[in-house]
């Protein structure tokens, strides 16, 4: 027990690589499960045989043409939402700052609904409108945190976000009432799902996700410095204003891409950084690294659950993430003191 007091073991208790490896391993398991289980007559053993390249033609088709694209889209969505949540929370110093809860996803969703109503069909246009909507949502959130007293009141910010989300959802519903054709398309998309999305959507979002990853690599170090306080960050030679602008832009890119891919998924950006922080401690760089395997694992795991719970039918992915995420929200709020970042 005396060892526990030595400095080296304090460092060891924050060991970084074991959780990263464990999360990576978990992710592999979830990917395997996603390929093996699903709707349709192909059983897990058939799918396994197909993966070993000696299965039936039908199993091969189901696994590579139906389940594989879905898996990839879920992975990218989870990656984007997890990173966006971690960035936004670190920047606003608010453990509840989640793109879905703060209305960024709803803004993105409203923009897509508007684009569909106006006749947009190509993947690129939807992605672009989703990102523009997310950017507007992010700008509103940043403006709101600038209001005196609101920046350090996490819960009031969340309540404002929930109100904003309600308003945008009402406006989206109104758009749906306007046009029956658009309504069918929007309704399919708005509950949040990764099923049956064409891979062309993925190609359309890939450039922005790559750009966002590059931006994160640039911004991670200054962001870690900003955790020490704005003055310290300035003293270390960073420019908080510029960093904030870059992060806002990055979050908009990530959330917009994720929303274009899977529809507005709430709570993912809350759950993923929550899990990652529990293992990584306060360093935002470690948190971001851990979000890389955890985010995809959470979304894909939720997707596998959504196929299994209601089999042979499917449950919308957004419903599963809400059912997983709301208890986490309650747990964070229930904690003796509001954890501050």
């Amino acid at each position, binding site marked *: 027990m005396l060892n526990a007091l030595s400095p080296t073991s304090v460092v060891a208790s924050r060991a970084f690589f074991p959780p990263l490896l464990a999360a990576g391993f978990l992710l592999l398991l979830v990917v395997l499960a996603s390929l093996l289980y699903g709707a349709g007559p192909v059983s897990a053993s058939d799918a396994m045989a197909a993966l070993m390249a000696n299965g039936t033609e039908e199993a091969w088709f189901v696994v590579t043409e139906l389940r594989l694209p879905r898996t990839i889209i879920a992975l990218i969505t989870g990656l984007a939402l997890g990173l966006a949540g971690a960035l936004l929370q670190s920047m606003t110093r608010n453990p509840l700052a989640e793109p879905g809860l703060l209305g960024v996803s709803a803004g993105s969703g409203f923009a897509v609904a508007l684009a569909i109503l106006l006749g947009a069909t190509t993947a690129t246009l939807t992605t672009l409108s989703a990102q523009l909507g997310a950017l507007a949502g992010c700008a509103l959130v940043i403006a709101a945190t600038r209001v005196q007293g609101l920046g350090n009141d996490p819960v009031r910010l969340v*309540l404002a976000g929930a109100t904003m989300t*309600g308003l945008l959802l009402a406006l989206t519903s109104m758009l749906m009432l306007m046009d029956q054709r658009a309504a069918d398309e929007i309704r399919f998309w708005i509950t949040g799902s990764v099923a049956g999305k064409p891979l062309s959507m993925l190609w359309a979002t890939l450039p922005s996700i790559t750009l966002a990853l590059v931006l994160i690599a640039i911004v991670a170090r200054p962001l870690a410095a900003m955790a020490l306080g704005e003055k310290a960050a300035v003293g270390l030679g960073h420019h908080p204003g510029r960093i904030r602008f870059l992060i806002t832009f990055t979050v908009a890119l990530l959330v917009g891409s994720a929303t274009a891919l899977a529809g507005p998924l709430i709570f993912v950006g809350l759950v993923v950084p929550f899990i990652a922080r529990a293992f990584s401690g306060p360093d935002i760089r470690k948190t971001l690294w851990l979000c890389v395997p955890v985010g995809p694992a959470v979304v894909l795991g939720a997707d596998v659950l959504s196929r299994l719970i209601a089999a042979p039918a499917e449950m919308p992915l957004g419903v599963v993430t*809400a059912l997983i995420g709301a208890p986490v929200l*309650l747990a964070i709020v229930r904690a003796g003191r509001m954890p501050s970042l």
Partner: protein
Amino acid sequence: MPDKRNTLVNTALLGLLVLATIISLATGTVQVSLFDTLRALAGHADPMTDFVINELRLSRVNAGLLSGAALAMAGCLMQTLARNRLATPGIIGIDNAATAFAVASVVGVGLSLAPSAMALAGAAAATAIAFGLAGANGTRGYRFIVAGIGIGAIAGAVTQVMLSRVAIDAANAAYPWTVGSLNARSGQSVLVLGIGLAAGYLVLMSLSRALNTLQFTDAVAIALGTRLKATRIIGLGLSVMLTGLAVSVCGPVGLIALLAPELARALCRPGKVPLTAAALAGASFMLVADLLGRTLFAPLEIPVGIITAIVGSPYLLWILLRPSPRSLT
């Protein structure tokens, strides 16, 4: 002791409500003049007008009146009990939970209880969970409200699950109601709501003195002779009942429970809990919002819940984002 200002406010709001009722009755696909509307109500109109007013529109207006009044009264009551103007049933998730339970009874997952009863059960369950999670903090502060947001999210998700498992036409039929609409009301639920509202109003009037003392601290209220625990339990029970019954009629129409008491409080003399004024204002809000929804994009009908959300959300945002909030406690 009735005082002048409150009587004046109540009379004015009542006049507004009567006006809103008559305009609601007169407006629609078939336009009826205000005079003919009055004659039809009195029973002296030609059969055609009589049918339009008394058979088609009266039950809808009636449902709107009762549910608006019940929601506003429930909101006013809960704000008073929690000493927090944001603690309205919609914000802390009671609406959504009541909807989830009522949808369960409509969809019929093994339970064939009437929607009113199920909505009541849902409202009670959500309240119990919200208070349980808030724990020692009680209703003070925002923790209670964020717990409510979580509960509302779960209930909304459960509603979607149930709707996604039934036939598509049943889901489409239930959809307007899940965003709040006067279209899907059943005569029986309206009747139950009417009885509940009348009974609740009588009880509340007898409690009004105790409720007024709740605006002070607990110590002062006790010193003034209020039985705090009993008042709180009765008040909360009534608030939950009114919300549940209203939701079983009109679905989760948000923000009336917030807006109407705000208006009533601004108009009435401070120091009293303006239950009557809130109820009158809530009924008028509901009717006007429904009227807007029916006429704005006619022949398209916009559910009343969407109208109240679009009108009410900016106001709520303003309360939240204003640099120096007055009394958010």
